[in-house]
């Protein structure tokens, strides 16, 4: 890649620039700051919208009473059960159980505090989901 071929497309970098390695006229490699490449915008958008879609699905399940608010907050932090379990220092099967609304409703304050800390939320926010309080 030559320096003048380094893409400067509008991208996901919010005005920041990424370091690319490209060759100058004499063929010597230099660091060139790039505003982004359309390719990375496409694949990044694909990944972020997959996450957003999954989050919406979870929210629907929470509203329908099939999943607890914990499931929503887990998804909104881009976590799955193994990752949340690791961050809250709990067994996976316990986390899985706490995704059930009935079990979550009976959760002790200590466990709630633990989840709130792992998810960087307040204990009050842990029981809330957007557009709904329980």
């Amino acid at each position, binding site marked *: 890649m030559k320096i003048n071929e380094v893409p400067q497309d509008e991208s996901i970098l919010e005005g920041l620039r990424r370091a690319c390695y490209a060759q100058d006229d004499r063929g010597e490699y230099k660091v060139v700051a790039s505003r982004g490449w359309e390719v990375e915008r496409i694949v990044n958008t*694909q990944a972020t919208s997959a996450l957003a879609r999954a989050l919406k699905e979870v929210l629907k399940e929470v509203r329908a009473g099939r999943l607890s608010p914990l499931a929503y907050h887990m998804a909104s932090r881009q976590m799955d059960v193994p990752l949340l379990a690791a*961050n809250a220092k709990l067994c996976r099967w316990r986390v899985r159980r706490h995704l059930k609304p009935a079990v979550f409703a009976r959760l002790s304050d200590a466990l709630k505090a633990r989840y709130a800390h792992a998810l960087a939320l307040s204990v009050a926010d842990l029981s809330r989901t957007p557009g709904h309080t329980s």
Partner: protein
Amino acid sequence: MSDDAQKRPFPHRHSGHCESGAIGALLRDRCLDLSEPLWFGIGGGLFFLHTRLIKVGGLALTTYRVAPLAIVRNATRRLGISMRYERFRDPEVAGERLETLLAQGMSVGLQTCVYWLPYFPAAMRFQFNAHNLVAFAKDESGFWLSDPVFEDVVCCPPEALQRARFARGAFAPRGLLYYPEKIPAALDVASAIRAGIRSTCRHMLAIPVLPVGVRGIRVLARGIGRWPTRFGEAQARAEIGQVVRMQEEIGTGGAGFRFLFAAFLQEAASHLGTPVLSELSAEMTAIGDRWREFALIGAHICKGSRADLDAYQELAEILWQLARREEVLFRALKDAVPA
């Protein structure tokens, strides 16, 4: 709480990759200035692995680089620099230790989780635990960081940094901080370069059975043409998106580290006085350009502007060619730098 560590000037440099950038900055701050391509190449950073046995977010793992921290460990070992690595159980203790070191005027390498770093653009904050950066000062506004993939130094609130250092899961940093303890007076850069090149050749050519190196590229080539029939259109697109993201979106300097490696070969040619390395650098550049074409077609498939099965076959065809060309290149490289 120490307030005696004020922000100071730091020899920050915009880098293609976090790990080679961070170790480079740590040593530049200690008056040893080597370029990022040299750190990357000496550390044996180039790699390829594609496997369905490990999943990332439900998608097959593809990586163009060696395991986290391997570049730091191997590059410093090959240069004879002794490093100190400290991990912590208690975040409070880790924070105090970091502040103590900064108050002594030291710069310190940190392993962090990108998701919790607030200065990253929102679209790039993914749960990834092996991002390396350098902390060099703390004042009332927070920790001053030289994050290699940013153009300038950044400031980070203490709570956010603590969270990023203690995120759990795969590659959990456990508060890891590292810094050089002893730098030899005379460095043998040439033999470190040779060791780095030989290790990269070994990784790309000679690891048996596993889907790594050139064989890994062939495994991907064989699989990719079948993805639409095997997984369905939507899943196939997601899988291709993942491959392209690992190549271009995370910090690679372009073309899955191939341009960074070409830059390394160019510098190595003059350090070792081996002109054939310049020719191999030119071929590596051409290979990198081909990887960029691969990414471009892949992105068109993801966007849906190319949905025909021919597009997948075209990707497979490019990969077969790339595997062949990289095999030839690394064999020539191995011969050019004998043990």
